[in-house]
């Protein structure tokens, strides 16, 4: 299982094709704007967004996305077999 972080909507749209169904996706920085326009095609509870970045931008989360702290971001990294930071 991999962890992918995305920091922009455009980068997410271009590279979501490389994310496997079991992988986890974390939206950070401007990546959290993805939650406004679409519910990204990430299911099975594998979608996360960084809480401070969500709050900073005034974005509302629906139930398909879990809000995580930096502490939980670190834990997601620890649990992942590989990390790909997309930017």
């Amino acid at each position, binding site marked *: 299982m991999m962890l992918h972080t995305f*920091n922009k909507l455009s980068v997410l749209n271009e590279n979501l094709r490389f994310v496997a169904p079991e992988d986890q996706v974390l939206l*950070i*920085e*401007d990546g959290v704007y993805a939650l406004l326009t679409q519910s990204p095609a990430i299911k099975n509870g594998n979608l996360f967004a960084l809480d*401070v970045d969500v709050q900073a931008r005034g974005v509302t989360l629906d139930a398909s996305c879990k809000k995580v*702290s*930096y*502490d939980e*971001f*670190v*834990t997601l*990294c*620890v649990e*992942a077999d590989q*990390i790909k*930071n997309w*930017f």
Partner: protein
Amino acid sequence: MKFAIVVYGAPYSDQASRSGYLFTRAVLEQGHDVYRVFFYHDGVYTANALAVPPQDEADIQLDWATLGKDHDLDMVVCIASALRRGMLDKAEANRYEKHAANINPQFTISGLGQLIDASLQADKIVTFGV
């Protein structure tokens, strides 16, 4: 677990330097080791000792320097990226006969080999890009 953190963005221009700082702090708070923080591309501006941000704004350079001091972090600024962008420590300023040095001594100027070493030695490498 050993983490390496890589920062590509300049403070204030992009969020990367701030995000990298908050992440590094969380890694340390969880009791993990930070093997190295490597500043590459515009990330090297994070080491600028001469920045004077307005008093009511976050001082990203100072926050990094303080974190580095408190936790004895190995914070490395890529020498090629730094020289190209006019970021010099005292030794480099002397070598190139420039009239000032601007790298905070809390940061070390070194080569790209430090990034490769970090990616081989650390259990996890996390990059904050722009």
